[in-house]
């Protein structure tokens, strides 16, 4: 039928699809998903949509006023939402990317996402609310503060910032 070294290189045929269909039917029978799970998912997603807070930009500190930190170009931006304040300091890296150091108030452990057009980066803030992204590509970016992993502190609503340009 096929040479040994090529045993897994054949294209799938109808028999393969039939096998997979039957495997699916068997698993649906022996270990079905709880029938009400999709409804519960839908409910929690609807709830979560309502829970998301949009933070607003409060202050943007002009680097020229920020004072004497050598030649380092950095600026500090503050966002506020109902439940959270987010302060970030944006500094240029030599490579052309930027470094972000941030603080959450009140301090808490959360998952922090930096969404850029190229990729989405994830970090966690520590118990003091500090977090850092070492290298973020320049351009438009948006921060999303989510619940931390389960059993950790910081279960507040998701907070998204407006898009900022790094």
């Amino acid at each position, binding site marked *: 039928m096929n040479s040994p070294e090529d*045993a*897994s*290189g*054949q*294209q*799938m*045929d109808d*028999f*393969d*699809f039939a*096998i*997979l*269909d*039957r*495997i*699916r*039917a*068997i*698993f*649906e*029978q*022996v*270990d079905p*998903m*709880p029938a009400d*799970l*999709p409804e*519960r*998912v*839908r409910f*929690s*997603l*609807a709830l*979560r*949509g309502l829970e998301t807070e949009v933070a607003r930009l409060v202050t943007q500190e002009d680097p020229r006023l920020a004072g004497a930190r050598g030649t380092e170009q950095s600026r500090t931006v503050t966002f506020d939402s109902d439940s959270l304040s987010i302060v970030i300091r944006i500094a240029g890296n030599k490579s052309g990317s930027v470094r972000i150091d941030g603080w959450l108030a009140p301090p808490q452990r959360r998952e922090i*996402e930096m*969404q850029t057009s190229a*990729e*989405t980066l*994830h970090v966690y803030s520590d118990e003091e609310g500090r977090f850092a992204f070492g290298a973020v590509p320049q351009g438009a970016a948006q921060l*999303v503060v*989510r619940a931390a*992993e*389960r059993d950790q502190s910081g279960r507040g609503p*998701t907070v998204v910032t407006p898009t900022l340009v790094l």
Partner: protein
Amino acid sequence: MDDSRSVSAPPGRVDRNPRMAELLDAARSGSEDALGQITAELSPMLWHVARAAGLAADDAEDVVQTVWERLLSHLADIRVSQALVSWLVVTTKHEAWRIRSSGRRQLPADQEWLTALPDHAAGTEEQIVLDEQHRALWRAVGQLSAPCQELLRIVAFVPRPDYQSVSAALGMPVGSIGPTRGRCLEKIRVLLADESDGRRA
């Protein structure tokens, strides 16, 4: 930490699952109904991915919830439906792995599905033949390695247009034209052939 969440489809590839692509578009522009249809359609897949990874039923339910919640914030990054399905599979595996590694290493007591193919009440002749085919297949599945069992269980629930992107995301071999038959599927064909030879002999 393994970070495979920013899965995107290969550039320039057409969307093979137009209906799902349409739902995805609608969900992205805020349609709760479209999102509801996507979750209704693909939640079984997530459930079986989580259970195949060895999670207890209540953990598997939590994982399914978590993955859908995560998707909300990734909707903007996921441009075609193949990327959606492989993102869901990979994220579910990742979440399941995180839960399994955070404590319980033993298989939970409710992971006994492999032994449980219930007896069928006799039906039409057609049903009996089908039942016997299922049993033969089930015996063959039982003889596979655990990774092969997991893989086939996952792939069995993946929508057909998404085989290629999912098998790529899971590290299965993929040919240049279409999905190739992986080692696990090849193995099961051999086992099935052996079994029917054995019966004939």
